[in-house]
């Protein structure tokens, strides 16, 4: 176990800057998620930590040891790849034993370790199969076992769930989180899926265009977004942003409700809402429309939980809606950064 510390990590690919000087400390034992859209540099950053890619400049420490210039194998990290990167020509047993063999672990120690790792992931019965005989979920466990078996200082996971089907992904998510909690190894997890990030991360690092836009716990990121990018990247549907008094005012659709729903009417901001379209999604309704007195440039959304189903909202009609003042966030119009108040 170790902490990972990056100082001013920069990466250039020719003329393109993939990372603009990243500063970050991943704490010991933490489950840290790098979240961002594709092309934001999260995978590049992970590969630099791993040593598969070299940084153009900057410093990097794993467990207080400088690792820039060291090849991946000398960094004490283990990685699970998006397509798992299993060795197709080796049996599961030999796949898991591979890192031990290259480290020169004595033969008699290898077998018990392989069986321990396989047992931990519940794949003890698959040891004599070849990877191509396994299902996606089983392959993912083999990849995890292989990463785990040599007890690395840091786990690096690059979208390890993206090749699983939707149902399996949910259960694999829970297992992975549970598993990490149990072994307590520092883990860095890259994903573009906000549900995975929110559900698994102790902390989330939101990245965009090669920059870190916010670091925080899932709650912090969701409730107190530091800028409009984070505000709109997280949440389905994303945060509404409208212009108000020279600022951008943001509020989440689930906080923008019909006035009749509120019990306590103090500290509310009233707005009339003209409904344009209603989407019925089973557990909730998403209502699209426009705010009165605000130019028709942006549609806003309201997410109504199903238990307020008695509300009959018709398209084209105007209704009294409201937002709690504490749920309003303000952002600078030009920079998109969070500001105190409008």
């Amino acid at each position: 176990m170790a902490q990972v510390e990056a100082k001013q990590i920069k990466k250039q690919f020719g003329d393109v800057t993939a990372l603009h000087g990243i500063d970050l400390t991943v704490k010991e034992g933490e489950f840290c998620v790098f979240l961002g859209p594709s092309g934001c540099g999260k995978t590049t950053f992970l590969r630099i930590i791993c040593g598969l890619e070299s940084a153009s400049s900057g410093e990097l420490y794993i467990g207080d040891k400088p690792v820039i210039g060291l090849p991946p194998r000398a960094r004490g990290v283990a990685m699970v790849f998006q397509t798992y990167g299993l060795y197709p020509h080796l049996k599961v047993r030999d796949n898991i034993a591979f890192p031990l063999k290259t480290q020169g672990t004595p033969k008699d120690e290898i077998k018990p370790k392989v069986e321990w790792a396989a047992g931990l992931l519940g794949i003890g019965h698959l040891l004599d199969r070849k990877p191509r005989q396994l299902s996606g979920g089983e392959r993912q466990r083999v990849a995890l076992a292989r990463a785990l078996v040599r007890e690395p200082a840091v786990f690096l996971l690059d979208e390890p769930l993206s090749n699983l089907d939707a149902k399996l992904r949910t259960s694999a998510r829970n297992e992975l989180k549970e598993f990490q909690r149990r072994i307590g190894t520092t883990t860095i997890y890259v994903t573009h899926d906000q549900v995975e990030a929110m559900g698994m991360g102790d902390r989330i690092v939101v990245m965009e265009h090669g920059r870190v836009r916010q670091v925080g716990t899932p709650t912090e990121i969701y409730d107190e977004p530091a800028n409009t990018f984070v505000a709109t990247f997280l949440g389905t549907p994303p945060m509404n942003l409208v212009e108000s008094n020279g600022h951008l005012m943001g509020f989440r659709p689930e906080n923008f409700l019909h006035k009749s729903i509120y019990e306590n009417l103090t500290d509310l901001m009233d707005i009339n809402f003209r409904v344009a379209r209603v989407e019925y999604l089973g557990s909730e309704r998403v209502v699209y429309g426009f705010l009165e007195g605000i130019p028709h440039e942006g549609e806003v959304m309201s997410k109504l939980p199903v238990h307020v189903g008695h509300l009959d909202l018709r398209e084209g009609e105007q209704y009294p809606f409201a937002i709690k003042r504490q749920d309003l966030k303000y952002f600078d119009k030009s920079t998109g950064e969070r500001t105190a108040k409008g």
Partner: protein
Amino acid sequence: METTTTTTTAAAPPAKPSRFQYMLDNPGFLAPLFMAPAVVYIVLLVAFPTVLSVYYSLSAYNIYNLSFKFVGLKNYIDIFQDDVFLQTLGNTFIFTIAANVIGLALGKATALLLLRDFRGKVFVRFLIILPWAVPIALATLAWRWMFDSLYSVINWSLQHAHLIGPNTWPNWLGEEHLAMISVIIVHAWRLFPFGAVIFLAGLTSIPKDVMDACVVDGAGFWRKNFQIVIPMITPIIAIAGLFGIVFTFTDMSVVYLLTKGGPTNSTHVLGSLAFQVGILSGDVSHGAAISLVMFPFLLVASILLLRFLRRREV
């Protein structure tokens, strides 16, 4: 929990790698190391001999005169004033063009027929591919026997099918035009299976969706062929076609074993003439000049091939 205690005793990261190991990790060092044997081989046995050949062709070197006296373009001027060479040059083009046109046409026909499903298809494909798969030198011997002046099985068959008169007995390899036709037949025979396999690969590489979409869109036979099939398989066919052309253009085994360039030098190709002049007669410098006449054409072929290979990347 027991597992936790195991992991807290995690092994320390391996020690910093040695300088030697560092080199084994560095692609900047490994790439040249990995390429060196192949590159050295090609430089020594392809590039250097090519340059040497150019040098021969500009000198007066032969087995009687071992001086490498520089004579400029004299050897080239000599050969271009020689009727045998001019006919040889013409032959080389005639053989190459005729054999490739016939080979590709038959190849395309074969490929279309092999797209059908029928029993024994694997065996039929094997029989079809035989001419391309066997050593051309040995196959040419069989053709020489089939074209034999006295016992030609081809003549026997033509006679009994009443395609030629009962008293005609063509001397395939002994008569100038027939000898040329014979060479073309053998080349086309060798090439068409290659063409068939390439066309087949091209046709089966067209995604079924595309063909379906095009049928749904109401495209007829011609539109389907000329707007979909041909454009889509062109790169593959072009690459394979260029290979076929280069192989025929530069070959000498067929001519050497079938006619030895005869009768009276009428069927020589550049390769066989260069062999006769440069090796058999020992006039190395003229031989080199004759074979180097191939070079500009190979260069054109290489440039075209390069373009098609590049286009394929896109």
